[in-house]
């Protein structure tokens, strides 16, 4: 009779608590999980200060067991500036959605990036305002329907989708800008590597890093999780090309 034991393949997560309120298949859950895994791997959970956005992930700190601050819509980079400069020993991460960073918060992120603030921003771009029910975001694709663009986004009225990585790439100070996604295993791996690199940049005091994650919104796009990731893979990557924009 053979004697055997069951060994877990992966360590139990320390930082990511799961049991989220996010919709099934939402990129936020996956991204929180990845962030939790990287924080565990780098062993920095005790030092992390996470600044949550206003958006679906407004209670991200209920799912990531770290200290944090919930600031006003879009102002996370200003909060992070003071936090990191007063407590450089902490690892400061801002986690922001497309409304938070690219609409109301464009001023704050541009200036924080321009000053080369020593924190890390994770920008979740899902081309729609999730929490408030599916309105147009600055990153909504042309022709994409939302509750405030019922016939699809038209450039004459609403302008063009905003490309944040490209915008920030015009500044001198940022050291790392990459756009990634989560629609298949290869890209989940790539996102993990990007977040790991962005956090190591902060640990080694190199400068400001931003990782833009193309994500989905199955509920507001009215698709299944599988369909929504297909949309990200096929449509969003045409407008928001994946890749490394800067890597100093």
């Amino acid at each position: 009779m053979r004697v055997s034991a069951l060994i877990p393949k992966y360590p139990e997560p320390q930082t990511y608590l799961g049991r989220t309120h996010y919709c099934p298949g939402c990129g936020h859950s996956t991204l929180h999980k990845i962030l939790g895994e990287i924080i565990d791997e780098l062993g920095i959970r005790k030092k992390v200060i996470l600044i949550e956005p206003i958006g679906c992930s407004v209670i991200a700190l209920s799912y990531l067991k770290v200290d944090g601050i919930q600031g006003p819509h879009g102002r996370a980079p200003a909060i992070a500036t003071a936090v990191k400069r007063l407590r450089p020993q902490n690892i400061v991460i801002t986690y922001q959605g497309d409304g938070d960073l690219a609409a109301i918060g464009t001023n704050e992120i541009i200036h924080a990036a321009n000053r080369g603030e020593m924190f890390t921003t994770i920008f979740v771009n899902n081309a729609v305002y999730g929490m408030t029910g599916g309105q147009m975001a600055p990153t909504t694709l042309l022709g994409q329907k939302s509750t405030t663009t019922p016939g699809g986004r038209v450039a004459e009225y609403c302008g063009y989708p905003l490309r944040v990585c490209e915008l920030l790439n015009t500044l001198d100070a940022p050291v790392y800008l990459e756009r990634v996604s989560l629609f298949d295993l290869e890209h989940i791996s790539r996102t993990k590597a990007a977040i790991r690199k962005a956090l190591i940049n902060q640990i080694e005091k190199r400068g400001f890093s931003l990782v833009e994650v193309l994500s989905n919104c199955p509920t507001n796009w009215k698709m299944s999780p599988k369909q929504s990731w297909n949309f990200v893979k096929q449509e969003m990557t045409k407008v928001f090309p994946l890749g490394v924009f800067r890597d100093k």
Partner: protein
Amino acid sequence: MMLYRKIHLVRPLSYQVKILEDRCKGCQLCVNVCPKSLLKPSTRANQKGYLVIEWEDSKVGGCMGCGACYEVCPEQAIRIYAEIEK
């Protein structure tokens, strides 16, 4: 960490995948990604009302412990175990 190293040194007899049903939301991303198609939606609903996913190994060409389901699950509701001879 030593435990996890052991899996690579010794060839496991089998792999077992456990779904934490109170965390599963039935999003089916794991179903799509399993190369051996060992995951499928069940007819059981958890307390939140989601139809949970279930895993059943197959005798031939079964689970390789690749971890794709674990990596893709947004809720970290999957646990993978290797059965190792002592």
